[in-house]
């Protein structure tokens, strides 16, 4: 048997087909990355609970830990590495600074096609109707 050529050709074709989505993505034009608007209050604070890079990548894990700690362990104060204290509350702390959900939360979530159901219960803009 001497099918070396056929086998190699088959493998090459397989990889081309399997990696097609990645190829396509490289050439397709992507929509512009969402531009986030910081409220004056958020700008003045300069730093969130953790640094911006951590928050961008891991805010969902942080919020998940927060909800467990608050509801299940009854511990409501978060002390960050600088020793600054925060009340662990999505509506009352996060959205107190980021009171522009539509321009801050939603833009990225829409871009990434994510629909978090936090807002089914948590009031999305505590300032709006105050």
């Amino acid at each position: 048997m001497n099918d070396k050529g056929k086998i190699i050709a088959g493998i090459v074709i397989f990889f081309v087909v399997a990696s097609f989505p990645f190829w396509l993505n490289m050439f397709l034009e992507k929509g512009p990355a969402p531009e986030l608007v910081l409220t004056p209050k958020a700008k003045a604070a300069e730093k969130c609970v953790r640094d911006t890079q951590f928050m961008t990548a891991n805010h969902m894990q942080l919020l998940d830990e927060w909800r467990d700690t608050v509801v299940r362990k009854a511990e409501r104060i978060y002390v960050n590495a600088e020793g600054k204290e925060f009340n662990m509350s999505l509506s009352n702390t996060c959205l107190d600074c980021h009171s522009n959900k539509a321009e801050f939360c939603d833009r990225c979530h829409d871009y990434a096609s994510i629909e978090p159901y936090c807002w089914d219960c948590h009031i999305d803009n505590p300032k709006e109707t105050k």
Partner: protein
Amino acid sequence: MEDSRRQFLKVAGTAAVGLSAAPAISAVAASGGHGAQPHVRKGADALTAKQWGLVIDTTKLDHEKIERIVEACHKTHNVPDISAEKVGEKTAVRHEIKWIWETHFHNAFTDQPSKYISEEVEERPFLVLCNHCEEPPCVQACPTEATFKRPDGIVIMDFHRCIGCRFCMAACPYGSRSFNLRDPRPFIKETNLAFPTRTKGVVEKCNFCAERLAVGKPPACVEASEGAIIFGDLEDPHSEIREVLREHHTIRRKASLGTGPAVYYII
């Protein structure tokens, strides 16, 4: 050939050991350099107990006072008012959501032995709510641990985990739990922006104002009752609530079931 294979395995083995140690090394390095790690704690003013409980002095309550207390609770916690005018009488009964409400003696105390009771007591309005039982049957029934008993005795719901199976409602002998058959938001008259609402498909009930205790405030019903409701630690013999219990004869709802209700009634 033999030699080079042996050589290869040696190098590969050493590399594997080195790689497996890397996370540990970097973790040690990280904890060393950056000072304090983020951590969580209770608030400084948080009220604590071993078993929170209530004493309700029913001699001090009437319809108006009870209405005020119910309103204070329901407003604080965004409890919807699904009234008959909005959804029709039949639906209102099925969809009703309540954390604390008024009822008759015979409904509140079904296991009282006396057949003939004083007329005055029979007509008196009684305030009922979740009993935050010592042995809560709802907690045993919950398949996801969405309902659990906290170390301070409060039986509380983690709405994030509730799958809406309603086993807890079947298990609770006091009817303290309500199910959200519809989105409650349109039925909330005045939204308390500091507290979340619920969503369709979860069970809800009294949380003993855990969010108020956490900042050193008494439960909303206690505050609105003007002294008719006393709250405190049932396990602390020196607490005000134990003092009141020593001075007055009290009864509990369906105590014979063995749930150990933590709400006591002065009759």
